[in-house]
């Protein structure tokens, strides 16, 4: 069995890539996808710890995170559709109104 550090490094890498995506991209959908990636990176940590500590709680929380990701995606995409309908753009820096 490999040391747990491998999983933590992988998770870190994915987390950072996701973070870079969130910061650099203008397209809101890709920003949303980067957030999904970050959540996913967290899941790897949770599952790895769950395996190494022999406690199922980590996996339970990973499931919760997947549920949360689903909720976030649904609402996020709903907002994007609503926004696109009104402003015809999905670029983050053009979303400069707090109302429509």
């Amino acid at each position, binding site marked *: *069995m*490999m040391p*747990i*550090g*491998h*999983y*933590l*490094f*992988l998770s*870190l*890498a*994915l987390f*950072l*890539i*996701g*973070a*870079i995506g969130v*910061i*650099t*991209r*203008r*397209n809101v*959908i*890709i920003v949303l*996808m*980067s957030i*999904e*990636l970050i959540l*996913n990176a967290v*899941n*790897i940590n949770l*599952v790895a710890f*769950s*395996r*190494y*500590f*022999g406690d*199922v*709680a980590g996996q*339970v929380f*990973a499931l*919760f995170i*997947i*549920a*949360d990701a*689903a*909720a976030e*995606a*649904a*609402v996020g*995409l*709903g*907002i*994007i*559709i*609503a926004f696109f*309908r*009104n402003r015809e753009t*999905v*670029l983050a820096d053009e979303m400069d109104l707090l109302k429509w």
Partner: protein
Amino acid sequence: MLDSIIFYFFAGIAVISAALMITRRNAIHSAVFLITTLLATAGIFLQLRAEFLFISQIILYVGGIMVLFIFVIMLVRLDVPLPQIRSGLQKWIALFVALAVGVEAGVVLFLARKAPGQGLLIPNPAPAEKLPPNTEELAKGLFGAYLLPFEIASVLLLVAMVGAVVMAKKRTDAP
């Protein structure tokens, strides 16, 4: 040994396609690479003997959420490449910050690895053959100790569903 081959295989795929995902200009390509990352992560879950999570990752994340993403990308016609990277300066700052955080966390992890018991407690995992059936274990956790969070999560999903419908519904009175 086989374990680590599998791990490196999936980890490599995950990192490479994640990097591709945030660099593609076309949103659909990004989505495809995110799917690849998620599938590779599912493979890592399997390697960690989290079978139920493996399949929920595939069914929920890949089969559900990502289909939704692609659906929306097609609906709002985002599939045309846009000038999507922000100004050069921001890119460099982001890279720098990310690298800094990465190096910092990496150093912590590395040191922790060096000194077990002090930085990071790393017990020896149980061998794969002796694990209890994963699905049953998870169910016991989910419907036993974590019943309340489970119910809250279901309410959260319900709220999200209603919210999404309200958001995306075609308004008749809007300008």
